[in-house]
């Protein structure tokens, strides 16, 4: 039987990218500018995705040296891995 597949939200793809570039632990967290460079995305687009994902606890932010840095949470990692298995 065929499975009806709902569209994958843009922020989920973004979450996957953040996971795949290695921002999966606090010590590997990245700033908005760094994420924008590594994912070739516009910083405002990065910020919007981060806002949505932080609200749903898939991403955590911490301030290091006055700069906000982001990494994927355990729940976020599980969400990403569910895409690939």
């Amino acid at each position: 039987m065929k499975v009806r597949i709902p569209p994958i939200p843009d922020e989920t793809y973004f979450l996957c990218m953040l996971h795949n570039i290695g921002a999966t632990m606090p010590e590997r967290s990245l700033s908005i500018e760094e994420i924008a460079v590594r994912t070739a995305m516009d910083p405002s687009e990065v910020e919007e995705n981060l806002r949505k994902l932080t609200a749903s606890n898939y991403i955590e932010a911490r301030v290091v040296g006055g700069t906000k840095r982001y990494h994927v949470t355990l729940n976020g990692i599980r969400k990403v891995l569910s895409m690939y298995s």
Partner: protein
Amino acid sequence: MVTWEFPPRIVGGIARHCYGLSRALAKKGHEVHLITLDFPGAPLYEEVDGVKVYRTKVELGHPDFIVWTLIFNHFMEKRVALISKEVDFDVIHVHDWLTAPAGISSKHYLNRPLISTMHSTEVGRAQGLHTPDSYLIDGFEWWLTYESKRIIVASYSMKREIEDHFRLPPEKIDVIPNAVDVEQYQRNVDREAVRARYMIGGHERLVLFVGRLVPQKGVEHMIRAVPMVLKEHPEAIFLIVGEGWSKSYLESLTRSLGCESRVRFLGFLPDRDLVELTLSADVLVVPSSYEPFGIVALEGMAAGVPVVASNTGGLSEIIEHDRTGVLVYPGDPQSIAWGINRVLSDREYSKYLIQNAKRRIAEIYSWDVVAEKTLKVYEAAEENPRK
């Protein structure tokens, strides 16, 4: 053994399978080295019941999934090569395409037979090949089956699937069903206390789903069945355990059906909590549309919970309808509701299913049996290692 998931990095059934199999092999006196990926909070090396577990730290990343996969495979392959300086491996056992490149390169580098376990296929998971990534993954899967001396699958339906799709000789494939750690489900739990923890009243009937929240697991169909169940059993409450990319869609579907007060999404639960919750459930639903095996059904059967499952893939082989569980039409909310209602309405029938299921689990689905069969596959692969 090379796998991309091993506890606490649990994505789906692969982690449970590798955990059960590797420990059972070690228990039989075999030296098992398991190479996997790192996970926040888990040590980079540890011994788990005799299994040497190496978690590979991936130092590089890339936003593209396939490139990222190749990068982590490179690091795993290096890890195997380093360990092989001190350990003379007899066989290399790879689980699914995600670690195929590491397994294949290790096979050629070490000149040892490669065995692969195909837990599912891309064409099955995605119900076709619709994207360039899907085509690539399908290619990796074919490559793995081609390079493998022997291929293990958990069900006859999966054997048919890979035989047809990858044009494989049937004699190259061995069917070894999954297993369940029965002891885990033999402890006494205070059902009332567990249910109270999830705010479930004594009069309420607990319907449980455990799995990844992705389309092939069929959660959508179970949610569409909820209003039909509530009509007959307003005391039913549905708990959905698991994480996945379609979670927000499923939550909005629940709201649109007006049953958000009777359906709760709990997210991922640690093993101990999950076992306790399973032991406290009144029915476990496995509504998958695509399921090469369905280890969660075994867990329900071992826990003494009546299982309502789709009549598809491996589930049809695990469950005997009306004897060890209830089989329903996949993707059909009416049929799923019928199955749940049947179990909730008749306690004697439930007891009958539970007794039969427990007996069946003890007879067939033990890790000891799986390890024994897997060893036979290793031996067969070693007979002509250079072929």
